[in-house]
């Protein structure tokens, strides 16, 4: 099966540049194809991911038969075009030198103290094309500088050359047109609107694409000189999109992360949380030495720093004790989504092969069942660019997977892909959606069922559903972005909706689970009933028993099940792998009871979270930037992670900790290096078959697992086992035009049918990959009484998680515990926007500041998950939905809901 709508190869036309005849795609952008063929035309305003504007005039060239000096960046190649760049046209060269002189006359010569000095296009072009001497003897233009335009970005208007890259990015790419040109002529300047900061989730990208030092990032300002930086390409693992980036360090400190342009994933963009989120790595709050709980003579106990052998012994003994007193299945392993694939694999092997428990889950009741994520036909991010329509059954991607939001925004805005949004409240993509189906929280399965029926020809009678159905056609060429939209209800309704959508022929699913490497952890078997490589416990039993010695007998509990069991006294030992149930689990009271009931807890975590503070043993892991490995993103793309700084203190890679613990159970994993772990995964895990260290380190844009069965032409630096034909191969053939971000990746896709057919070319076939049987729990609609509002708990980009809480530059950006309500509900309640209400559920209550939001329908309320200052406890995961009664507090306490009071 091929990818969604594969595109025919472009028609080639002849182009002569400086006397060289080249064949380029018809309709290509001249400045782009010239560069691809080795003719670099200097430019400032042109950016390959944005529409050309032709403003800076640096790329003026001559075209035979065309009057004057047109800019290359706005020129579309036509057949037989003969172009003279600055290399062969004295006129073009003079014009370019003139433009450079114009740009320099008012540009301050403060390069020695400019962040950009040393990596500045203006400097570089001045060396290459510029005048050696200044003819400008007048006074330069002056502005107050620098001025903050957002929390993280400073603007120096004197350095600005007004290329409009930042303003165009904000408008066209991010959809946050919060900065703009003001004044005109020589007084032109970029500025935010008065009292309205450039508060975009993507503001840091403007710093990266600024061709001078006009926009600087406060976390990086004056911290390094570019020539001192040591650089390594890696992935950002702040969320599960895993954008490609380049981490820079100096004097063994990470100082910044830049986006790397990956056609497949992020197009060079990063969100601000990812870009500036590296600060937590160097947080003084990091745990950098192992700790063991010791009881003093007075009976109080505290965590005390000890040596690794002592801590590992204590952990192993504690777990052995639990197994001896109870049984292996009374131990649970919770977490692992924040580590690398290698960490997850070795921990899965330790948990399932050594401890012998299947109570393993990398999700904390805040995701979707592993079978649903792994067992549906998968789509890549690029598939969304070519799909007929994309169904959004997911939380607000702008808040949770920001760069996926950018990709879908582009697909809808520039590529004509129809978005069909199904959800309880508006999201960042609502304004771009071709159809929106709103439903009460907890009722997704109902509307999706009617939608699927409407696609099948049974009109629902609901205009919005039928309109959405019309956009989905017969259901083919549809990608469903599937996530967990609401933490105030169980996943059941979403699972049932997914089961219904999965009946559409040819439909593919793109997971929208958020936590960094959750897809890698699921793939590595950190989920109940699963073994590494997307196989079920039963299907993989024979193969893994042979490799590991043993695997658990039956399916264990998932994250919520473990906590419930612990609270009920049925789980006695717990290993927390970088997870903090107190913060991450939607039902805080249950998490608290569970942790209080556990007999023995080992925590592998870089911070003393609320959960870690209760541990018996704390083992500190090395974290992102400090260790190598690989990670798998939402589309199943495995990309390498690179170590750039030495691990803090006495921290150790997670997987090594598992190896050491296994040794204390007299099991020798015989794993010494990352390469060895990767080889074992490539050998044993069916979906990762062949994906060893050569592939992971060799494929520039990573590889989507499972690998395609065919080997096609690959570029240099590509590993032979991949079927990866994107950017590089296409580039060599000159087939990639500007903005053709979607090109490439087609041949990278694979599926089980092909793999089976072409088995001869693959390594020996192993256990069958998991296929979800679409068994979904029955979801009965729950009536909402008219005095209540139904709750949606969803994440905001900035929350109380460690990346934000431990990052001084972004910690203030978390909005806090706001309860968003429809203006009409606030009016009924007699509360002004920003007033406070008490919200009470069947579980508990809390006092919240309200925000009036039209995007939240009447009868629905939205609360941000895990916000600083929120100690409320509203969600009971045993309930199908969470309904809130609202009442006013303070001076207006007597005013209840006008419908009759909320009490």
């Amino acid at each position, binding site marked *: 099966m091929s990818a969604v709508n594969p595109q025919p190869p472009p028609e080639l036309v002849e182009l002569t540049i400086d006397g060289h005849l080249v064949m380029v795609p018809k309709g290509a952008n001249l400045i782009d194809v010239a560069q691809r063929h080795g003719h670099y035309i200097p430019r400032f305003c042109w950016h390959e991911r944005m529409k050309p504007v032709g*403003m800076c*005039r640096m790329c003026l060239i001559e075209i035979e038969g065309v009057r004057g000096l047109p800019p290359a960046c706005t020129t579309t190649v036509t057949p037989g075009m003969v172009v003279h760049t600055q290399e062969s046209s004295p*006129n073009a060269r003079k014009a370019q030198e003139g*433009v450079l002189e*114009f740009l320099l006359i*008012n540009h301050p010569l403060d390069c020695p103290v400019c962040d950009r000095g040393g990596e500045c296009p203006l400097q570089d072009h001045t060396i290459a094309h510029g005048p050696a001497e200044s003819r400008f003897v007048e*006074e330069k233009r002056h502005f107050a500088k620098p001025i903050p335009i957002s929390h993280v970005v400073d603007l120096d208007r004197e350095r600005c050359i007004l290329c409009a890259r930042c303003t165009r990015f904000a408008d066209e790419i991010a959809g946050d047109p919060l900065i703009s040109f003001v004044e*005109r002529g*020589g*007084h032109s300047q970029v500025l935010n609107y008065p009292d309205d900061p450039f508060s975009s989730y993507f503001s840091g990208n403007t710093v990266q694409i600024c061709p001078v030092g006009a926009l600087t990032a406060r976390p990086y300002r004056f911290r390094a000189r570019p020539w001192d930086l040591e650089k390594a390409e890696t992935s950002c693992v702040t969320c599960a999109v895993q954008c490609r980036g380049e981490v820079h360090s100096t004097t063994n400190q990470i100082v910044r992360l830049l986006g790397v342009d990956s056609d497949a994933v992020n197009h060079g963009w990063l969100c601000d949380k990812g870009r500036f989120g590296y600060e937590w790595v160097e947080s003084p709050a990091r745990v950098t030495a192992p700790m063991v709980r010791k009881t003093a003579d007075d009976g109080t106990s505290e965590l005390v720093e000890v040596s690794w052998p002592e801590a590992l012994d204590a952990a192993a003994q504690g777990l052995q004790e639990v197994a001896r007193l109870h049984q292996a299945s009374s131990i649970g392993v919770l977490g692992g989504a924040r580590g690398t694939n290698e960490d997850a694999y070795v921990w899965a092997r330790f948990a399932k092969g050594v401890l012998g428990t299947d109570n393993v889950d990398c999700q904390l009741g805040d995701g979707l069942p592993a079978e649903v994520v792994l067992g549906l036909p998968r789509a890549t991010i690029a598939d969304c660019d070519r799909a007929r329509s994309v169904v959004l059954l997911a939380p607000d991607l702008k808040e949770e997977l920001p760069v996926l939001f950018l990709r879908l925004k582009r697909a809808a805005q520039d590529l004509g892909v129809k978005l069909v949004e199904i959800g309880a409240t508006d999201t960042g993509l609502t304004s771009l959606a071709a159809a929106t189906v709103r439903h009460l929280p907890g009722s997704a399965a109902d509307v999706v069922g009617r939608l699927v029926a409407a696609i099948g020809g049974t009109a629902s009678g609901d205009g919005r559903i039928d309109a959405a159905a019309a956009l989905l056609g017969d259901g083919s060429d549809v990608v469903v972005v599937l996530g967990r939209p609401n933490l105030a209800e169980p996943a059941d309704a979403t699972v049932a909706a997914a089961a219904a959508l999965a009946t559409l022929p040819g439909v593919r699913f793109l997971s929208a689970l958020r936590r960094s490497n959750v897809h890698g952890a699921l793939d590595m078997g950190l989920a109940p009933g699963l073994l590494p490589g997307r196989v079920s416990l039963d299907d993989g039993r024979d193969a893994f028993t042979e490799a590991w010695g043993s695997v658990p007998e039956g399916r264990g509990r998932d994250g919520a099940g473990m906590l419930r069991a612990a609270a009920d006294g049925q789980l006695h030992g717990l290993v927390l792998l970088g997870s903090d149930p107190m913060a991450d689990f939607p039902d805080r009271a249950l998490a608290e009871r569970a942790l209080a009931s556990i007999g023995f807890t080992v925590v592998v975590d870089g911070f003393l979270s609320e959960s870690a503070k209760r541990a018996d043993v704390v083992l500190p892991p090395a974290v992102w930037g400090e260790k190598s490995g690989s990670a798998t993103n939402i589309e199943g793309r495995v990309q390498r992670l690179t170590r750039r700084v030495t691990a803090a203190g006495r921290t150790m890679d997670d997987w090594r900790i598992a190896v050491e613990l296994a040794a204390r159970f007299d099991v020798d994993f015989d794993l010494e290096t990352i390469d060895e772990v990767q080889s074992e995964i490539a050998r044993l895990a069916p979906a990762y078959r062949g994906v060893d260290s050569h592939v992971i380190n060799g494929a520039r844009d990573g590889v989507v697992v499972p690998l395609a069965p065919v080997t096609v032409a690959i570029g240099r630096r590509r590993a032979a086992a991949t079927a990866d034909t994107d950017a590089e191969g296409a580039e060599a053939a000159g087939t990639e035009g500007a903005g053709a971000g979607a090109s490439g990746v087609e041949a990278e896709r694979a599926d089980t049918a092909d793999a089976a057919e072409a088995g001869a070319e693959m390594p020996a076939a192993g256990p069958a990959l998991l296929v979800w049987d679409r068994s979904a729990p029955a979801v009965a609609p729950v009536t909402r009484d008219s005095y209540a509002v139904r709750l949606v708990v969803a994440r905001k980009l900035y929350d109380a998680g460690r990346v934000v809480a431990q990052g001084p530059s972004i910690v203030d950006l978390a909005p806090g515990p706001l309860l968003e309500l429809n203006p009409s509900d606030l009016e009924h309640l007699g509360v002004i926007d920003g007033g406070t209400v008490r919200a009470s559920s069947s579980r508990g209550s809390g006092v919240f500041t309200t925000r009036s939001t039209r995007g939240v329908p009447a009868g629905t309320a939205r609360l941000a998950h895990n916000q600083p200052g929120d100690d409320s406890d509203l969600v009971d995961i045993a309930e199908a939905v969470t309904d809130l009664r609202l009442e006013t507090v303070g001076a207006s306490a007597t005013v209840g809901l006008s419908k009759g009071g909320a009490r």
Partner: protein
Amino acid sequence: MTLQETRLLTKRMNDRPADSFTMEGALATGAYDMLRKALQMKSADVQEEVKTSGLRGRGGGGFPTGTKWSFLPAGLYPRYLVVNADEGEPSTFKDRELMERDPHQLIEGIAISAYAIESNLAFIYLRGEMAHANEILTQALADARAKGFLGQNILGSGYDLDIVLHRGAGAYICGEETALLESLEGRRGMPRIRPPFPAVAGLYAKPTVVNNVETMATVPHIVSMGGAEYAKIGVNRSTGTRMFSLSGHVNRPGNYEVELGATFRELIDDLGGGVTNGGTVKFFIPGGASSQWLVNEHLDVPLDMDEVGKLGVMLGSGAVMVFDQDTDPLAVAWRLVKFFAHESCGKCTPCREGTGWEEKILYRILHGQGRPSDLDLLLDIGDNISPGLNAPFSQTTICPLGPSSVSPIVSLNKYFRDDVIARCTPRLVTMLTGNGLAGNGLDGGLHR
């Protein structure tokens, strides 16, 4: 024989000066008769008449109007007619008079033109400062709607048209047609990259014709006398009459409607009453601030767009500025360049940075701190904005605003080079050193 005005466009306002701007005054002098006539013709025939008339755009470019209309892609609708009433070229004031004193002639011309190009919606982009014209046009448009000259089924013809009056916000650049369209769409007024041209993708990305006020006001007269008859007026390819805004050192400044082919001398002496105080013409600007200059010896050049073009200047917007023997050309050049620097929109580099630099250098020379090399520096800066320093302009910029700023410099060099260099003597500069006029740049470069 002295030159007389040829009154086509200015006939009504001269015949009924008291009420030419009212519906009553207009109807009494035959207004909208030509609309009635045009609506009985096929739209293609109206277009053909305009083509035959040889009418060329009166805004500055001088492009044949009928040809411009024919660029609209066939079969693509809606189409828009946008009337450029953003008359901002310094010393040009003809459109304002046409709008204030004879709005119905303009509306009739717009209606006929819109019918000819099969557009059902027209826009007048009015210069923001023209508050009086705004009032007059608002009233006139309301009256025309009330009388059924605009709206649905105009005069029973089945043709619908409305005209939207939009006031600009005071930017010269919005007289450039693509910047005008940007502004009309509600965005910052900055020129667009062409292609696509407005005829293909203009206002709201639809096929659009942008025409000047005077061009539109001429159309009813072409319908009235027929294109061929109209083409007999004027000279060569410069057919018809044009409004000239005469200003500067003349005794009777003002708008004069003249049959093309007369000379500058006739315009200045016969209609303008000669140079003030019996003086002589030192130099004059023949077609608005953007044009290069002419001097005394060129006074007998005919008002013919092509003849004038041969001298590297243009009739442009029809603004003739006359300067007498006592005028300092350097001061004039500085003031004109200051205007362009002030009005540069800032979109493209050569204009944004270059015009300001030119202005600073001219200011420095004007205030006695010039260097002998400064004029050549100015020319080289100009060459980097308008390579070759030619007219019509070649340009490194998006629109002609930047190259326009080079015109005064080229003219200074052409006619007054020695004077300018003489004012850049080191002695004078040394005397004035230290007064801070030119900021920090005086060292080193001074005595070069």
